[in-house]
């Protein structure tokens, strides 16, 4: 009896121990002052689950998301809902870039044969999960990037990843509280404790830029990568404008409307990082003082990070920054690669899209540019010009999949070698399409959004680079992470065009008029073919009234 009791208690102990071993939850918050009066704050909530053990039995992983991942056999999933435009040129690079509106891409397991059906099901399910219009993702706005996107997670080296990938973006999607609430419910502490308590939708939807994301991938458990873990990462990126908080001294109260009520008790690690590199040029003090300051050397770029370890003791914490001198505008250092995209032309007949990419480095950079034009904006490959040349030597490889109306978008990928210290201009012409009257969205004259282009690059320098290395899950991996290349995928700004519209008020009139013209031909031709000419006495000339009367009489004959 005693033995059984002891055995059972061991069992319980071990299960508990195993579960603690297999599930891990970490929350991190990163602040970085950006040039010209902006503040970048980035939340990251990471849950690591043993993927060998069914993720349904996890304590910490969001069950609804885990079910989606396992049911649709998703290897890797990235979903972002973004409002606003990240200004790479001015702000440098975010930790994770996101396209304006909604963006979803996923790799399916190699066992999935009918990827398109799974993709539709996945997007429809996620649409319900996040209350976003992802159900509008269909074959007409989905592409399979060939070169621009690569998995962030662990994949078998022999695996053909491109055919299992689908990418779609909905640039018109508006991000709102209704998307944030279900997103918060996926966290183990929801919004009651931990860093997510700061995400007060009243405050964060007032920012210049906000992006909510969910990223699922497989990561190696150990360096030999015999076993993999499933990583659920939920992110929020916010850009505050000092103009809006009316001072360049910020604190949690000012930014989020409240202090931080301690860490989430379920998290193994809760840390706040503040980038204090700019302290040397713009002296400021942090209050309360950080636990320690780390000097990180990445590439040849030095970064100073102030670190706070937050404990789940329920004490209110209000971290803030006070500048010693008032309103100094920092000088922005141009990042190694920046870009701009705009629409050419006037009128509503022909136009062009221009993508300008500037390489600010002293070394050439290879980039992959993915232009993804919706079917109602047919681009013509024959008009593609790189720096004004039809056959440019800069283009090393090219992939084009022509679009089809109402079925497939136009998808162009270019591998371009950008010469050092230069700007490369990619121009392509398009023709405006005239849609059916029911295909126009409400408020048709508002214009149509064109999704952003993807630019995928391996940067030779870590200047302005904040992303985590591909093997890292938390922010400590950034420290002293010197590599040969720093991979990143950018989203350019979107654009807008105004398509020509028909008159929505007169379908009946048009149908009647066009049918009348057809009848104008049918009537006489019918008469000519079926009747013969005869002479009919016309009699004496009649007055107008009699003529009118005769008209009715003729009918009776």
């Amino acid at each position: 009896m005693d033995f059984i009791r002891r055995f059972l208690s061991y069992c319980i102990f071990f299960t508990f121990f195993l579960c603690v071993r297999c599930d891990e939850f970490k929350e991190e918050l990163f602040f970085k002052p950006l040039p010209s009066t902006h503040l970048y704050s980035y939340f990251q909530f990471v849950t690591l689950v043993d993927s060998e053990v069914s993720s349904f039995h996890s304590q910490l992983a969001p069950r609804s998301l885990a079910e989606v991942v396992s049911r649709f056999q998703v290897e890797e999933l990235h979903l972002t809902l973004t409002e606003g435009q990240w200004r790479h040129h001015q702000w440098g690079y975010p930790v994770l870039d996101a396209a304006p509106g909604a963006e979803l891409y996923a790799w399916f397991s190699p066992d999935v044969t009918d990827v398109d059906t799974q993709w539709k099901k996945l997007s429809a399910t996620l649409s319900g999960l996040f209350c976003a219009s992802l159900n509008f993702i269909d074959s007409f706005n989905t592409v399979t990037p060939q070169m621009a996107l690569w998995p962030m997670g662990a994949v078998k080296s022999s695996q053909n990843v491109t055919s299992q990938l689908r990418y779609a973006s909905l640039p018109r999607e508006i991000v709102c509280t209704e998307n944030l609430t279900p997103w918060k419910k996926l966290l183990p502490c929801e919004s009651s404790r931990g860093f997510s308590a700061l995400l007060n939708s009243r405050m964060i939807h007032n920012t210049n830029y906000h992006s909510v994301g969910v990223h699922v991938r497989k990561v190696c458990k150990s360096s030999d990568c015999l076993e993999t873990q499933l990583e659920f990462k939920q992110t929020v990126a916010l850009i505050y404008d000092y103009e809006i908080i009316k001072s360049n001294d910020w604190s949690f109260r000012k930014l989020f409307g409240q202090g931080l009520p301690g860490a989430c008790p379920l998290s193994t690690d809760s840390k706040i990082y503040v980038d204090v590199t700019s302290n040397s040029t713009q002296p400021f003090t942090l209050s309360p003082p950080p636990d320690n300051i780390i000097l990180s050397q990445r590439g040849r770029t030095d970064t100073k990070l102030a670190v706070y370890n937050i404990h789940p003791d329920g004490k209110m914490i209000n971290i803030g920054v006070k500048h010693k001198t008032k309103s100094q505008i920092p000088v922005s250092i141009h990042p190694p690669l920046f870009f701009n995209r705009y629409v050419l032309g006037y009128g509503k007949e022909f136009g062009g899209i221009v993508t300008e990419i500037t390489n600010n480095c002293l070394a050439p950079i290879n980039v992959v540019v993915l232009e993804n034009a919706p079917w109602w904006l047919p681009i013509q490959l024959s008009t593609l010009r790189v720096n004004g040349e039809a056959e440019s030597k800069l283009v090393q490889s090219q992939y084009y999949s022509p679009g089809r109306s109402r079925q497939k978008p136009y998808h162009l990928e270019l591998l371009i070698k950008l010469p050092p210290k230069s700007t490369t201009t990619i121009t392509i012409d398009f023709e405006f399409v005239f849609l059916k009257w029911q295909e126009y969205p409400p408020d048709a004259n508002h214009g149509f959004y064109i999704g952003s282009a993807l630019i995928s690059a391996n940067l030779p320098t870590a200047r302005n680079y904040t992303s985590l290395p591909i093997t890292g899950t938390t922010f400590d991996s950034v420290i002293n992470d010197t590599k040969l290349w720093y991979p990143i995928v950018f989203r350019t700004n979107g654009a807008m065009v105004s398509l020509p519209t028909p008159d929505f008020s007169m379908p009946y009139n048009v149908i009647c008029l066009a049918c009348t013209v057809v009848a104008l031909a049918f009537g006489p031709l019918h008469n000519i073919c079926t009747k013969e000419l005869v002479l009919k006495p016309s009699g004496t000339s009649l007055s107008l009234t009699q003529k009118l009367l005769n008209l009715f009489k003729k009918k009776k004959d």
Partner: protein
Amino acid sequence: MGVILKYVVAGLLRYWLINLDYWQTIANRVEIATPLNSWKRLIEGVYLYDHNINPYEGDSFHESPIMLVFFYYIMKKVPFILPVLFTLLDLLTAHLLYKTSKAFIRILKESQEKQLAEVADESKPMLLDDAQLKESAEYVLSVYLFNPYSVLNCAGMTTTVIQNLLVATALWGASSGQRIVACVFIALATHQALYPVLLIVPIALILAEVNKGCTKCSYIRTLLVFVLSWGFLIYLSAYIMDGSYKYVYNTYGFILTVPDLKPNIGLFWYFFTEMFEHFRVLFVCAFQINALALYVVPLTLRFKKDPILLATVLIALSSIFRSYPCVGDVGFYLALLPMWKHLFTFMQQKFIVGCTFIITSALGPTVWHLWIYSGSANANFFFGVTLSFATAQIFLITDLLFAYIKREFTLKKGSSRQVDGKPAKLVLR
């Protein structure tokens, strides 16, 4: 001498327009270039084919694979020849139409002599003499060479130039009794644009009349040669596309289902823009039957004695009612009208039709600019103009037919419009 001068002047005019700075503007006009025939799309198709991308995978190219390969080789080997080539092809079309109209007039004259017994004495002066007949062939040539519609069509380098050439060759083949030529070329034209399939009926009638002998055998032979050559062309196109018949969706499928609603001078674009979704299939079918099948049988039965008139009317009707018409099609059938110069005196709406042609031709580009570029008009303006242009064309064709039956009546019964001494008028009963 005069004829050669006409060719030279017309050729130079076309060549000059193609080399003009405004060429791009001409080639992009909605009235001239449709999604089916525009030079831009041809370039795109050839470019994709050159880069090993199937042009029929996307939605940008709607020509037949034969045309694709033809232009692919020209653009690869001798791209500088293109302006000259288009000019020469259009001049060749004019020349073939000239020869065709001469032959047709000979046929007209023969049939007139056959029916001489039925002609009333007082109508004898109305019969056509040689001078009049010779004159009308000259007019056909002049109209095709200097009609602004055909000039602009050639200047825009649309593939309608090729289409007109194919149809003209087929007509010439029929008028000179060469069955193979007529059938092969009408099959080529059908393969390119589908609507010329109608012309096989008048061509079969003309061939039977020219070649004499057993008429029914002649019909069957013509039909057989046509079907065989059309089938062969479809197969050949598939062979070019590595055995895939997918191009059919982009050529015939595109013509029949009207997925591209870019405005043109026809009736389809706004009608199907504003169409209610669940009636779309019904109306697409109705409009295509109207353009392809509706008028062939009744008109053939009515005018089988005069297949040339039948050919003219069918070309005209299919140009008005096709899904992507352009001014090149209009120019082509307008050039055939001078053959019916002797009917003009019986036509009642010449003035109205003429005025409408001029006004709509001027107003169309104006309201287009107002709608698309200055944003001060809307689609209804351009629709109104295309609607009246179509109405004018319909009036022209029905008026021509009425004139024909009136003349027929007058020849038989004399020109007096009296019944038992009382004034009377001609009515259809």
